[in-house]
C-alpha cells in the first residue's frame, strides 16, 4: 500500500508519544545538573534601586551586573519610523512588565532554587504603568522607554480614496472591536537546558523551540560566540503555536549561567510564569468603517488598528510583525477597491508581543467578518449571501488584491456555499422562526425605498432591519436564542524571501534545505532543519520522500531539530513546514531517486530511464528488480560491482527549495457555527460547527484534520474564553488556570470538516500551508452567530472573548436604555 502523498498514514511519532517514551527537555538528565528559578519583577513598571542577595547565597544568584558583555536582545527592522528596543535577558535599570526576569537562581532542585529566589530583595521604585494601548498613544502618557518621545514602536499607513467612496455608499457601517490579550498555553511550556561539551568545545543548548537554527544564530549573536561554538537541539516539543519561534531571554541567561558555572543548568517554565510573563499575544483594537452599496457590496474600508505590543520587541520577528500583518491582511478574501488603514504598534507594560497561530489574522478576520455581517444586516440581506458576493471570485484567480497580496488559486465563494450546505442554513433559519434566507434586498417590498433613503442620506445601519429582526426570532422552548454565523478567511502561508525582505527583519528565509540519503542498509534518512512540535511533520515529510522514492514510511527515518545534524532552516513558523521543508525533501528525494535509478541500471544491465522505483525496489521494464538494499550495498560496500564511470555524487543529496513565486500561497476556508445563547445568563453553547477548507494538495488528510480541530479549538478559546487580565497598575489578574479559562472537551463541539483541493500553481505538489489556518476563523463565526441570536434583543457583541458577563452586561444595558441612535446596543 502506498504511504505517499494523500494517504492517511498513522503518525510515526505517536509510537513513542503514546508509550510515554518521548523525550522533552524536562526528561533529560546529566551528571551535576542543577535547576534554575528566576526572580521576576512583581511590578509592571519600576526603576530598580538595588538588588540584594543574602551572603549565604553568593554564587547561586546572578543579575544583569554579572552578565557583562552579554548584549540585550535587539530586533532590527528597516521599516520607516520603527524603534528597536533593548531587552536585557536579566533586567537592567528598569523593569517594564510584571514577570520580567530580574535574577537567576540555581540549586540542586527547583524547590531549593525557589527558596533562594524568595530571599533576593528587590528595591523597586514604582513608576506609573502603561496598560491601555489607546491611552498609551496619547501625548503625555507615561513612557515605557523613556528615551523615546512616545510609546510607538511603529506606525504605518496606506491611503485610498475613502471619502469619495463614502459619498457613493448606500450604507456606512462603523464599528469598534476589541480582542483580548492571551497566552498560547502549549501543553509543554518553555524549557531550556544548557551545558558545555568539553570535547567539542561547544555550548550545547537543549531547548523547547520551533526554530533551533535561529536560536543558534541568536544565542551566538547576543552571547558573542562563534556559531560553530554553539549547538542547539530541540528534542520533543510539546506544542509551540508561535510562543517558541522567538529567542527567549531565558535561553540566553541559562546558557550564560551554564558557561559561567561550568554546570549543566535547566529551567522549566511553570504555569504561573507562562500565564503572566507569557501573556504576550492577540490584543488588538479596531476602529473600522465600511461603505457598501444597497446590496451590501463593499465599496471601501477604512481601518485604524492598534496593537498592544507590550514592552519589548521580540527577536527576530520584532514588535511590528503583528500590526504589519494586520494592516496587510484586513481586506482578506474580499475583492475591495478602496482601502485606507493606519496601524499603531504601541508599547505598554506587558510582555513583548509574540506571533501566535494565525498571526494577526484571528484579529483582522474577527473585525472584518463582524463587519460583513453588520453590512448584511444594514441592507437586510442574508449574511452568507453578502459574504459570498464580496469574495474574490474563482474566475479572477490568480488575483492581486488592494494591499498587493497575490492570491494563487482557489474558489473562495465555493467555501461559503460548502459551509452553508454543511451547517444547514435554511434549517437553522426555519428553526429560528425567521423568514428563510432573505432573497435579497430588492425582492422585499420596502427595500428599494429604503435604499433610496440611504442614497440620499448615507447614514449608519438601517433601522428597518433591526425592527424586522425584532419581530422574528423567538426564543426556543428552553428560553435560549439560536443564531448562525459564518467566517471566511484566506491565509498567506509559507511567505518567503520577498515578503520578509520587505519587512527588513533580521532574518529573511530563503531556500529551505533538506538532505535525503539512502543508507547502507537500504533505508532512507531524511534530515530537515525545520521542526515538528506536534504537527506530525515527522510523518508527512516521510510521506513526501515515500512518494518520490517508492519506499514505505516505515523504512524512512526523519531527523529534525538538531543544528548538529541538519541543514540550516529558519524553522517552523508561517505555516511553512509542509510547503518549504516538504518541497525541499521532495526535491532532494527526486534527485536521490534519479541516482538510485542510475546505480540500479548498472546492476540491472538496463538504461536508467527504464527503471522505476516501487515497493522499496528498483524495477527494470522487463520484470527484473533489485532492492534498495542491493543498490546501497553496491555503493557503500561492494563498489567493485559498479562500472568505472559510476556517478560519484553518491547516495546522499542536499537540495535547496523555494516556490517559484515566493510571496506565499493562500489557504482559505469558511467556518460556520450554530450557537444557543441563554439571554438570562449570557452563556453560549456551540450546537454545531463546520469547516470547509482548501489547502491545496493534502499530504495526510488525517493529520490535517487534527491540525484543523486543534486550531479551531484555540480559536473558540479566543472567541469565548481566554483573556489575560490586568489591573490598572499592570498586575496580572489571571495567573492560574482557575482564572485564565481554556475551553475543555465539554465546551468544544464535535466539528465536521470538508475539503476541496485547489492546487497551488507555484509549489511542489500544489501544497499550501495549513498549520495555523483553523485558529483564524472561529471568533468571527461564533460571534456572528451570537449576534445573529441576539438580534431580536437589539444587542451586538463586538469584543472577545464573548464571556457570559459581557453578553449579559450588553443585554441588561439594552433593557435599561433601549436601542441607541443607530438602533443597536453594542457591547462596551
Amino acid at each position, binding site marked *: 500500500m502506498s504511504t505517499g502523498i494523500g494517504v492517511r498514514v498513522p503518525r510515526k511519532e505517536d509510537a513513542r508519544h503514546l508509550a510515554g517514551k518521548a523525550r522533552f527537555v524536562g526528561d533529560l538528565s546529566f551528571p551535576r545538573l542543577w535547576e534554575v528559578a528566576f526572580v521576576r519583577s512583581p511590578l509592571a513598571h519600576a526603576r530598580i534601586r538595588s538588588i540584594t542577595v543574602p551572603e549565604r547565597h553568593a554564587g547561586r544568584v546572578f543579575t544583569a551586573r554579572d552578565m557583562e558583555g552579554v548584549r540585550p536582545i535587539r530586533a532590527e527592522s528597516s521599516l520607516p519610523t520603527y524603534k528597536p528596543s533593548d531587552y536585557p535577558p536579566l533586567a537592567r535599570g528598569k523593569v517594564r512588565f510584571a514577570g520580567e526576569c530580574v535574577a537567576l537562581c540555581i540549586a540542586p*532542585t*527547583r*524547590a531549593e532554587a*525557589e*527558596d533562594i529566589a*524568595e530571599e533576593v530583595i528587590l528595591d523597586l521604585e514604582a513608576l506609573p504603568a502603561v496598560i491601555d494601548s489607546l491611552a498609551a498613544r496619547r501625548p503625555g502618557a507615561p513612557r515605557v522607554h523613556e528615551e523615546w518621545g512616545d510609546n510607538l514602536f511603529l506606525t504605518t499607513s496606506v491611503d485610498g480614496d475613502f471619502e469619495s467612496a463614502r459619498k457613493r455608499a448606500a450604507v456606512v457601517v462603523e464599528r469598534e472591536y476589541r480582542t483580548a490579550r492571551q497566552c498560547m498555553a502549549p501543553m509543554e511550556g518553555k524549557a531550556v537546558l544548557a551545558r558545555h561539551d568539553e570535547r567539542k568545545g561547544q555550548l550545547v543548548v537543549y531547548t523547547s523551540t520551533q526554530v533551533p537554527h535561529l536560536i543558534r544564530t541568536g544565542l551566538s549573536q547576543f552571547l558573542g560566540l562563534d556559531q560553530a561554538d554553539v549547538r542547539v537541539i530541540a528534542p520533543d516539543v510539546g506544542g509551540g503555536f508561535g510562543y517558541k519561534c522567538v529567542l527567549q531571554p531565558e535561553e540566553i541567561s541559562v546558557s550564560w549561567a551554564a558557561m559561567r558555572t561550568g554546570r549543566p543548568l535547566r529551567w522549566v517554565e*511553570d*504555569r*504561573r*510564569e507562562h500565564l503572566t510573563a507569557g501573556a504576550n499575544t492577540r490584543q488588538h483594537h479596531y476602529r473600522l468603517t465600511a461603505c457598501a452599496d444597497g446590496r451590501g457590496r463593499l465599496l471601501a474600508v477604512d481601518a485604524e488598528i492598534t496593537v498592544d505590543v507590550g514592552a519589548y520587541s521580540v527577536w527576530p520577528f520584532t514588535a511590528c510583525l503583528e500590526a504589519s500583518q494586520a494592516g496587510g491582511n484586513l481586506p482578506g478574501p474580499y475583492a475591495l477597491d478602496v482601502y485606507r488603514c493606519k496601524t499603531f504598534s504601541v508599547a505598554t507594560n506587558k510582555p513583548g508581543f509574540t506571533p501566535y497561530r494565525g498571526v494577526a489574522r484571528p484579529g483582522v478576520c474577527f473585525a472584518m467578518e463582524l463587519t460583513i455581517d453588520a453590512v448584511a444586516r444594514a441592507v437586510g440581506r442574508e449574511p452568507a449571501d453578502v459574504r459570498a458576493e464580496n469574495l474574490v471570485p474563482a474566475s479572477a484567480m490568480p488575483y492581486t488584491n488592494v494591499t498587493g497580496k497575490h492570491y494563487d488559486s482557489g474558489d473562495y465563494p465555493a467555501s461559503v456555499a460548502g459551509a452553508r450546505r454543511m451547517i444547514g442554513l435554511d434549517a437553522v433559519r426555519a428553526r429560528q422562526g425567521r423568514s428563510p434566507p432573505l432573497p435579497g434586498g430588492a425582492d422585499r417590498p420596502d427595500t428599494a425605498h429604503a435604499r433610496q433613503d440611504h442614497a440620499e442620506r448615507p447614514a449608519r445601519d438601517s433601522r428597518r432591519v433591526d425592527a424586522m429582526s425584532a419581530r422574528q426570532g423567538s426564543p426556543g422552548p428552553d428560553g435560549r436564542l439560536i443564531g448562525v454565523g459564518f467566517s471566511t478567511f484566506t491565509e498567506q502561508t509559507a511567505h518567503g524571501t520577498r515578503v520578509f525582505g520587505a519587512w527588513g527583519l533580521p532574518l529573511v528565509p530563503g531556500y529551505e534545505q533538506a538532505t535525503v540519503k539512502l543508507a547502507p542498509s537500504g533505508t532512507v534518512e531524511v534530515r530537515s532543519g525545520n521542526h515538528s512540535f506536534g504537527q506530525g511533520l515527522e510523518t508527512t515529510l516521510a510521506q513526501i520522500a515515500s512518494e518520490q522514492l517508492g519506499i514505505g514510511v516505515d523504512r524512512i527515518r526523519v531527523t529534525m531539530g538538531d543544528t548538529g545534524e541538519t541543514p540550516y532552516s529558519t524553522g517552523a513558523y508561517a505555516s511553512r513546514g509542509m510547503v518549504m521543508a516538504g518541497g525541499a525533501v521532495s526535491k532532494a528525494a527526486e534527485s536521490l531517486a534519479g541516482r538510485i535509478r542510475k546505480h540500479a541500471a548498472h546492476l540491472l544491465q538496463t538504461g536508467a530511464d527504464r527503471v522505476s522505483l516501487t515497493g522499496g525496489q528498483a524495477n527494470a521494464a522487463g520484470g527484473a528488480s533489485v532492492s534498495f538494499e542491493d543498490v546501497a550495498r553496491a555503493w557503500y560496500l561492494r563498489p567493485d560491482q559498479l562500472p568505472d564511470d559510476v556517478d560519484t555524487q553518491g547516495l546522499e543529496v542536499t537540495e535547496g527549495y523555494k516556490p517559484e513565486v515566493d510571496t506565499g500561497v493562500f489557504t482559505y476556508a469558511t467556518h460556520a457555527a450554530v450557537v444557543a445563547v441563554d439571554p*438570562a*445568563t*449570557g*452563556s453560549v453553547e456551540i450546537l454545531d460547527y463546520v469547516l470547509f477548507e482548501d489547502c491545496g494538495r493534502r499530504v495526510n488528510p488525517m493529520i490535517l484534520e487534527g491540525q484543523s480541530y486543534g486550531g479551531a479549538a484555540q480559536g473558540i478559546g479566543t472567541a469565548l*474564553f481566554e483573556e489575560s487580565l490586568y489591573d490598572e497598575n499592570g498586575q496580572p489578574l489571571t495567573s*492560574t488556570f*482557575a482564572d485564565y*479559562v481554556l*475551553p*475543555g472537551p*465539554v*465546551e468544544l463541539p464535535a466539528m465536521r470538516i470538508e475539503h476541496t483541493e485547489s492546487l497551488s500553481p507555484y509549489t511542489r505538489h500544489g501544497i499550501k500551508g495549513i498549520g495555523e489556518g483553523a485558529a483564524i476563523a472561529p471568533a468571527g463565526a461564533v460571534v456572528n452567530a451570537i449576534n445573529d441570536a441576539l438580534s431580536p434583543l437589539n444587542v451586538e457583541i463586538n469584543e472577545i472573548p464573548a*464571556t*457570559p*458577563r459581557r453578553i*449579559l*452586561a450588553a443585554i*441588561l444595558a439594552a433593557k435599561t436604555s433601549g436601542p441607541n441612535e443607530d438602533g443597536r446596543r453594542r457591547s462596551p
Partner: protein
Amino acid sequence: MKPVDFAYHRATGLDDALEHLNAAGEGAKLLGGGQSLGPMLNLRLARPRVLVDVSSVAALRTVEPARERVTVGAAVTHAEIEDRPVSDVIERAMREVAAGIACRAVRNRGTIGGSVAHADPSADWPIFLVCAGARVYIRGAAGARALPVTDFIRAAYTTDLAPGEIITHVEIARAGGQARFGFCKLCRKAGEFAEAVGAVLIDPERRCCRVVTGAVGPKPVVLADTTRTLAATAMPPEPDAIRAEIAAVANEHDPVKLHTAAVAVGRAIDRALAAYAPSHDGDRSGSGARTGLTFQSADI
C-alpha cells in the same frame, strides 16, 4: 511553583492524627485530598512545616445512611459520594452536587471535609450543606463538638475550626418523602467553580424550606424572604425580589453578578417545583396547583 520544605505524616488513625497535629503546633496543616491545599502549597500561599494527611484515616472514611440522617466521614471523596446508591431526595441531591464538582480526577481525591474546612465561597458542598441544614462534627484535644455548617463557616476561607481540631464528619437530616431539591450551578466551563449557585430544599412533611444563594458574598446564605414566599405560595417569587434580597444579604451591587445569582436561585426554585407533578387539571401555574406543598411557618 514548588512548595516550601515541609514534613509529611500519613495519619494511621484519628488519635494519631490529633497527636501529630498538636505536637507540631502552629506550623501543622491537615491534608485531605489536596485538591485545594495542593495548589496553595505550590503557589506558596500555604507554608506549613508539617502536613498531617488524614485522607486514609478509617474513622473519617465511612458513610452511615441511617433512617433519620446520613453521616458522611470527612475524608469521603466527592467521587465516592457520586457513586453511592441513592434511596431518597437527600442522597440523590448529594450525588447531583458531587457530580458537578470539577472533573472526575479532582473528585477522586477531593473530600467533603476538606471542602467544608476550606470554605471557598463558591464551593459546592458548603452551599448544599447550608441548604440541607447540615451539622459539622469536630474533634480536638479537648473533645468533640458539633455545630451547624452555616455557623461553622464564618466568612470566605474562614471557619470556626480551632488549631488542633479535625472535622470528623458531617450529618445531614433526611427529608420527607414529598421533599424536593433543586440545584443550579452557573459556571463558565463544565466543572469549574461557580459564578453563582442556587440551592433549594422544600420539605412539606418537616415543614422545612430553604433557598440558598452561593458564590456571591463571603459565604452561602439562606434567603429568608424568598424562602418564606416560596413556602407560603409554592410559587417562585418575583426575580426582582430575589435580586433585591441577594443584594441585601450578600452586600453585592454589581448588576451582572446580581442578575446571575438571581437567575441561579430562580432556576433552582423552578427545578425543585418542577419535580412535583402538575395537578390533574394540567394547571401548572395556577394557585393551588401544588396544594399540600405550601406551609406558612417554615423552619429555615
